[in-house]
């Protein structure tokens, strides 16, 4: 029984990571009817950025290339839309958060370098962990925006198969780019998860060992889900998002700026994927450029399981998938070999028996 409870907590924490990724898939599918194949790789980018922040750059300064990259990104983000004919106000408004973020980054650098004496040593501090998270979220948000802007928006009126191919192209680009030794290199590296204080400790409640890392994952997921549901259900942007996912062209007629909403969806989904990436690599501390493939596909399975396009469904699907996976590994002799197969079997059973998923609506095709 105690073992079962332990497995349950483990499964829920794995599942909540899947849920975070799945929400991104499901939101993008909701508005665009497109599977964002690159989503798993955005997850990987998040983990790698956090890895860089945790090991190489901090606590003294960010490396020069990061400054250059971010400044270049901001400059391009300013000039390219202007050249493409977007109004100056819109462009400035969309770049503003990144500028603020960069200023915050410099400020943090200053603060940390004031208080820290160690150099190139992974220290255990909440500030560091939070910084890694924030950096990952910011970078992935930007990556998500750029992906949508460059690869999906020009093809929006074309057949979806083309978007699928560009999505695969983006995914390959991120993977091969990461595998390049100038960026990260193909070999897996240890994620500095000790920067989260007490990540490897555990509590003992009534004989059940509860890892602090699992609790952290669950808590962060829960908080993010509350924030997400607030955004989707209570804000004006959330209302627009729901309107766009309900009916694309009618939403445009109601005065909703569809491009902005879609960009927002991508940024939001990518940010959640970044959080998932950091949490995942804190749980399984090994980072490599291909790490996004399997979690990405599993999260997609979770999204389909819950009914794609439905955010609650994605969360529930992710949790169930994580639980099933952990239980198969825990209770089947030799089950660990079939760990990755479980998701695919679930996917195929679901697609055969109830393709609309647990919470999905049954759409009948009309002539």
């Amino acid at each position, binding site marked *: 029984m105690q073992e079962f409870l332990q497995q349950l907590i483990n499964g829920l924490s794995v599942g909540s990571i899947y849920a975070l990724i799945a929400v991104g898939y499901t939101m993008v599918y909701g508005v665009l*009817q*497109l*599977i964002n194949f690159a989503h798993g790789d955005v997850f990987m980018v998040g983990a790698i950025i956090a890895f860089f922040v945790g090991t190489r750059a901090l606590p003294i300064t960010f490396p020069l290339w990061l400054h250059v990259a971010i400044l270049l990104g901001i400059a391009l983000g300013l000039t390219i839309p202007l050249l493409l004919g977007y109004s100056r106000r819109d462009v400035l408004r969309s770049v503003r958060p990144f500028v603020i973020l960069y200023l915050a980054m410099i400020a943090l650098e200053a603060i940390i370098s004031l208080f820290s004496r160690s150099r190139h040593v992974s220290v255990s501090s909440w500030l560091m962990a939070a910084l890694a998270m924030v950096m990952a979220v910011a970078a992935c948000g930007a990556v998500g925006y750029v992906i949508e802007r*460059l*690869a999906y928006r*020009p*093809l929006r*009126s*074309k*057949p*979806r*198969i*083309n978007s*699928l*191919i*560009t999505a*695969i*192209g*983006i995914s*390959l*680009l991120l993977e*091969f*780019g990461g*595998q*390049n*030794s*100038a960026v990260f290199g193909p070999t897996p590296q240890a994620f500095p998860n000790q920067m989260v204080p007490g990540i490897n400790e555990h509590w003992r409640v009534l004989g059940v060992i509860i890892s602090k890392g699992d609790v952290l994952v669950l808590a962060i997921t829960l908080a993010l889900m509350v924030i997400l549901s607030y955004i989707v259900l209570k804000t004006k942007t959330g209302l627009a998002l729901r309107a766009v996912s309900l*009916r694309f062209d009618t939403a445009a007629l109601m005065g909703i700026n569809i491009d902005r909403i879609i960009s927002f969806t991508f940024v939001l989904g990518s940010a959640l994927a970044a959080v998932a990436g950091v949490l995942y690599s804190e749980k399984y501390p090994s980072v490599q450029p291909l790490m996004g*493939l399997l979690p990405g*596909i599993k999260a*997609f*399975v979770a999204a*389909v399981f819950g009914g794609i*396009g439905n955010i609650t469904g994605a969360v529930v699907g992710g949790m169930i998938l994580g639980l099933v996976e952990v239980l*198969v590994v825990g209770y*089947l*002799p*030799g089950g660990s*070999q*079939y760990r*990755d*197969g479980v*998701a*695919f*079997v679930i*996917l*195929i*059973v679901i*697609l*055969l*028996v*109830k*393709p*609309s998923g647990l919470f999905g609506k*049954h*759409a*009948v*095709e*009309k*002539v």
Partner: protein
Amino acid sequence: MQSKKSDSSLAEAFDATDLPSGAGTLSYSNLPPGRFRFGSLKANLPLPILFALLIPLSMFVESDVVGDYYRRIIILAGFNIILAVSLQLINGFSGQFSLGHAGFMAVGAYLAAYPAMNYSQHFADPFACLLFYAAVAIVFVVAGTVLFAAFLLIRWTRKLYQALPMILLIAMLIWAMFDFARASAVTVGNPPKYYIWWHGADSLVRLFAWVTTHGRDAAAHLSAALPTGMVEPLSFIVLVLGSGACAGAVGLVVGMPALRLRGDYLAIATLGFAEIIKIIIRNSEPLGGALGLVGIPKYTNFAWLYGAALVTIVVIWRIAYSPRGRAIMAVREDEIAAAAIGIDPTRQKVTAFITGAFFGGVAGAMFAMHEHSITPESFGMAKSIEVVVMVTLGGLGSISGAILAAIVLTILPEFLRNLSPTLADFRMVIYSALLIVMMLLRPQGLLGGREIWPWRRFRNPDPVPTEDRDDYQGSDETKPD
């Protein structure tokens, strides 16, 4: 269905003589029944010429003029041509976006490598290989019948309660998993009687062993009776065709359920099937597990490979630009409209899928008998995606485009590698960036549904998928059924 007479009014509008019309009667030719027409001389002349050209070409490629490095690139291009052309039938002509072609390749490769190592005695025993495939077929049919009957029974329970089939299916899967796991863990060799699933699998293995051991002597006698010069090529052909047929059977198994889905869902489902195949191979002891099979006898050479590529191209060209191909394309254009004029969409889709899978398996078999060793990792998602990229870059619905793209994309990474050492590090990045740029600038691919030599093509000069047409309004109901 109506009689022939009421069809005739539609004949002009739909060119219905070429489409299946009437219940059960398929008239695939516009000639009166009973007469068989050989292809016209003009259309068929290039084939013997091309096959004859293979001999001097292979002498050239196998000679020392072409180094090992270039020979390897040429051979790799051959595999990619077969894969791309066979996937073109699935993705381009039938419009079913499959992302699992490497799975079929894996089936072909392993089911050729295993008998090549254990049955063929270095290609000296073609009938033993045949026996192996016969045993596989028997086991496949028995297991398939039982599972299909069970599936039908479970499906029938939908009448009792809507969600009952899903519950039963999941329960059955979990039961089977626990059954297998417990039986293999607790008592190796002799589990108690009530482990039904374990016993089912065990008896299938025993059936297979029984067939192969009892037929082996007869096979050896038959092989000994063959003229010595024929033995090796015959073994090779048996291995290639047999493993191709196995891949086709897997294509049937995958296709029957998966083809009910469409678009992205189908892509993911086929990807899932390919991964499941990989995981099964990785966990199966006779197939070498994660380490793979090492020491496969080598037989594939330039002539065999490009001969197979030619056959693939010819067969798929003939299917695609025949009345059946027109039916397949009609399903791609609009499933409901195709069904309304008497085409069975599932049948056409499954036909395309099985044919594609067969040739994927052939490519895999050739690959296995060219490499010294194969591992499950060589048939991963990356390989599937590579083939899909070839097909899409070449242009969906264009066989010559697929060939062109297969050649270009095999050479391109090597070309970038040789260009400069700094570029070599970035060659895969360039490759993927090129894919994106290509999709943005020329979404229809290199040839965009046309052929280089458009002979024997449609009367419709430019078959463009409905979704690509300028006046296409887009459908709102794109969600899966």
